[in-house]
């Protein structure tokens, strides 16, 4: 499965990447929202994990871009405490699930499995 991770925190990015690779997924990494949008336009991902707050474009803008391009891909949003309102916006734009930081990478893997029925 091809998974895009958009996250500007290097430790979270690398940890999630290693967990997913260990699970046998192919992973594409981006550290900013604009780059994530470009990659979404170029490739067809099976799942996207995105942070809300990122440089150049937010997770919300990524969700808008997915909707604009008519792509049907499950998206898991990572948000921080106090971003509840943004999470509501994310669901309105088609997010499939969300996790609040601090989060458990193991739980993220379980949610990915549930979303992709693997």
């Amino acid at each position, binding site marked *: 499965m091809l998974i895009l991770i958009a996250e500007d*925190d*290097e*430790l*979270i990015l*690398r*940890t999630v990447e*290693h*967990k997913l690779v*260990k699970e046998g997924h192919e992973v594409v990494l981006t550290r900013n929202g604009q780059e994530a949008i470009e990659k979404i336009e170029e490739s067809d991902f099976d799942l996207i994990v995105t942070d809300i707050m990122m440089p150049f474009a937010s997770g919300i803008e990524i969700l808008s871009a997915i909707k604009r391009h008519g792509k049907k891909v499950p998206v898991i949003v990572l948000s921080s*405490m106090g971003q509840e309102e943004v999470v509501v916006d994310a669901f309105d734009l088609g997010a499939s699930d969300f996790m609040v*930081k*601090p*989060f*458990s*990478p*193991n*739980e993220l893997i379980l949610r990915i499995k549930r979303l992709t029925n693997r």
Partner: protein
Amino acid sequence: MNFHHIVLHELILAIIVVLILVLLLIITVLGYSFYSYRILHNRHTWKQIIEYKIMETIVGSDRNDEQDREFSKHLKEPSFRLLFLEVLVDSGRKFSGAAKKAINRLFYDFKLEDEAWRKLRQRKAYLVAGGIQELAAMNVEAAIPEIKAKLDDDRAAVYQEAQYAMVSFQGYEGLEFLAHFDKPLSDWQQLRLLSSIHHIPELSDVQVYSWLKSSNDSVVIFTLRLIRKFRLMTFYPAIYALLDHLATAVRVQAIRTMQAIENSATIGQFITCFDQQPIEVQLEILKSMKLARSKESEEFLKEQLLNHPKVSIKILAAEVLVVLDGGQYLREISQKEDTYDELIQIIKHALQEKKC
């Protein structure tokens, strides 16, 4: 001739001395810049090494002996250990569950506890606060007595961090300090403490009542926020009594709390006390009526719209009437011949707000 020769000689000597001094200054500046660059560079490289180690521990990757040796070598550097501790605490805020446990394990495996204890016993406030933060983040319960003693420290950075640590360790019980706390509890600190309390024990009534009676206004405000967060209905009468409190900020919070745990008497009580309240509290009452959306307040709002001397109250009263489906009434008022211009503008503004 001889005199000129001496002067010239001294002048040349002086120029040489100045040049040497300038050269020394340049060397010092260059040396310092290089040193700063090295520190920055080291910090960046070290941070990458540390984050890789943390990631490896969380993910449970196969051990690489070469990297382990390299890591152990760095661990002998005191500044590397301090950075390791800093990054570890920061990482602890990003993960939960097994990942957080793995981070805690690193803290103990590499004996970083010693660094945190050392910081706690330093003199400088920022170092002590850092030590408290690190010991609390890594859940070192043995540090509780020493951190508790810091609650009485005079320096804000220290006692604030100690308060937060006590609540992180003990939850609600960590709020004991409120009973004798006489300094202002900042809004930010109140929010931090509130976010760390996840439940209130059943036998907390006596304590909460005593905080509501505190002579420290910020403690009363914090308690009201706590009551709001956990919807503690039993305190409603005590909160109503706070509408006579000397501090306006306390009264404003009391109104918000009454609204959050409202009962069938709340709107009536708001209406009864309205005239005795300062303008800030009156505005808060109207905001609470907007949230409550109770038809019981309709006549009262019409009265305020037509007769209150303050424009801000009239504006808010009109806005609440719009929320209560009083748009038709407002349009009728604005079309009356004897309605003055200011009121027409207020009504137009309120109706416009609704459209937006």
